[in-house]
């Protein structure tokens, strides 16, 4: 089974709404990263949050980390159609050189 896993396979919202993608992981980590992959492209990092951090922001994006429940969330406010993508969480759970990705959540933002 996956070391990191998003909790929803797919989400859809209308432009302007807020949305949250959740992720759970199985072992202790040094850091957790959120990536976004648009169709036909490679993933691009959005946020890196370390195990001693509880929250990190990047513009309209906010990531939280709860090490006691081994979970993280990525919230996007004021969504835009261009936010449509697959969102992955990824952890360094197995070693400091390997980034293990979850299966991803497909987010669709409708006009």
């Amino acid at each position, binding site marked *: 089974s996956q070391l990191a896993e998003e909790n929803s396979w797919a989400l859809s919202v209308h432009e302007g709404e807020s949305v949250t993608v959740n992720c759970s992981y199985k072992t202790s980590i040094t850091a957790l*990263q959120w990536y976004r992959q648009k169709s036909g492209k490679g993933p691009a990092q959005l946020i890196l949050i370390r195990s001693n951090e509880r929250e990190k922001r990047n513009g309209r994006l906010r990531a939280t980390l709860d090490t006691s429940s081994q979970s993280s969330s990525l919230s996007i406010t004021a969504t835009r159609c261009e936010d449509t993508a697959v969102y992955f969480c990824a952890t360094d759970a197995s070693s400091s050189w390997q980034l293990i990705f979850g299966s991803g959540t497909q987010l669709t933002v409708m006009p």
Partner: protein
Amino acid sequence: GGIITQTPKFLIGQEGQKLTLKCQQNFNHDTMYWYRQDSGKGLRLIYYSITENDLQKGDLSEGYDASREKKSSFSLTVTSAQKNEMAVFLCASSGGQISNERLFFGHGTKLSVL
């Protein structure tokens, strides 16, 4: 800024064929990675390399070979293509340990096996 270039973009092979995918980066990064992505699924690590001539197996290394002859390039070989196999192979690089670094990805090589 840097860029990761993967060639070819599309690769069509025959069952049993040996196929090589290439990746170049100009970030001057030490660490490079090959991931496989099946349709609708997450990324699975095949091989990574933390420096020139170093090779480390990921969870999905069986059926693949890799080569890191130069710091800037990392090749992946499918040793025997499987019939009807279809996947995207993503190359990435990072400056160091991934607890502190982001991965930069190429656009991928899409493999189809007839």
